[in-house]
């Protein structure tokens, strides 16, 4: 239950950040770095901010929403989907963080916050999937009992 709460919270934050950054991009605004500096602007202006015209932040919002929906479900398949998207998203977030550190040479606070959420989601969703059982978990065991 605690894991589910963590998962829902992290997915909600990741979705919110993705939506906010996508909205800023759509409005033509530049992401403000809360603690100052120009890292957010540099990252959002980089060639890695979009994938064939689709903002990476939009991908984050969509992925976060998918994990959020799956986190509410006990169905094994949805749980598998949630875990897959969360782990895949976490890996992609780590890749983006690597780009920020070693390619773009700038750190965006929003991206870091999003990466933390995705890594949390990846770990928690994988753990949930593993612990509760991919085949139905507690519900299956109750049924079996």
């Amino acid at each position, binding site marked *: 239950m605690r894991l589910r709460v963590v998962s829902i919270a992290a997915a909600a934050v990741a979705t919110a950040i993705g939506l906010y950054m996508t909205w800023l991009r759509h*409005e*033509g*605004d*530049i992401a*403000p770095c809360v603690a*100052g500096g*120009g890292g957010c*602007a*540099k990252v*959002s*202006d*980089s*060639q*890695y901010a*979009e*994938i*064939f015209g689709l903002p*990476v932040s939009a*991908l984050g919002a969509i992925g976060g929403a998918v994990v959020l929906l799956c986190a509410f479900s006990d169905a*094994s*398949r949805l749980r*598998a*989907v949630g*875990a*897959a*998207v*969360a*782990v*895949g*998203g976490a*890996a*992609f977030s780590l*890749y*983006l963080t690597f780009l920020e550190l070693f390619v773009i*040479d*700038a750190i965006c606070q929003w991206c870091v916050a999003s990466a933390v959420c995705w890594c949390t989601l990846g770990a928690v969703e994988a753990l949930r*999937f*593993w612990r509760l*059982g*991919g*085949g*139905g978990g507690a519900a*299956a*065991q109750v*049924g*079996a*009992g």
Partner: protein
Amino acid sequence: MAQKSTSRQPRRGLLLIGALGVAVVVAVALIVASQLSAGDEETADDRAAAVSAAAPDGAPAASAPAASTDGAGTQPGTASDAVASPDTTTGAGATTAASTLPHVEEVQTMLAGIPQQGTILGDPNAPVTIIEFADLRCPACRSWETGELQTLLDGAIKPGKARLDLQIISILGPDSDRAAAGAWAAEAQNRLWPFAMLWYYNQGNESDEYATDDYQRAIAVGAGLDVARFDADRADQATAAKAAKALDDARSVGFGGTPTFIVTGPGGAVPFLEGVPTAETLVEAVDQVSTAAGGS
């Protein structure tokens, strides 16, 4: 009961492997797509390399546009004047042949027909002034100038509702100091706007110190500057004093970063000291302060 539990095991394993497989595929696909997509786009390093390639060789004066040494460069003009009269320094059109710098034509088109004098772009008698504080090395400024400026030009500057006053300041270290000196040297020849716009379109990587003499001369040639005079002005203390005064002005209004905008007119002033407004927001602010009763 035991049979049911054991029958779940293979399914559980399959789901686990399947989920892991999907995760790997999702991550790899996104990373590959990101790399492919990024490979198609121009990077800051690409831009800096293009400027280096366009940098004039040898003595800078030899690379200057032919007709720009007689003091005419201090007179205001428009880019369209230049196309019509290539024997004046007011024309970026005269520089087309002299410069291989990327985006020269783009900047010419953007600024064509708009009066330029000193730091001012637009009708000098326009009732509203939009003051912009910017650093040439600031990526956010680049985003704004290459993404938003055209909308502002169409919505407020070209119709004569407002004039745009560009104050180049240095807030990003010694390389920004050199960049600001270049900008104010360009201002002395009434070429600040093409110089700044060409700089932004060809901006290098913020983490590199790229505002070298060669880089600046390449921009200067593209902007139609008298390069010998540009070099002399960059080293002049009076030029440094202009940049310092602009920074003092920015600080006195409490700017929170670059770019910062302040819209002033008969109806008052609307400052944008935190965050970056869109061009539409600035046009709305222009309308708001354009009459004595309309401002805050």
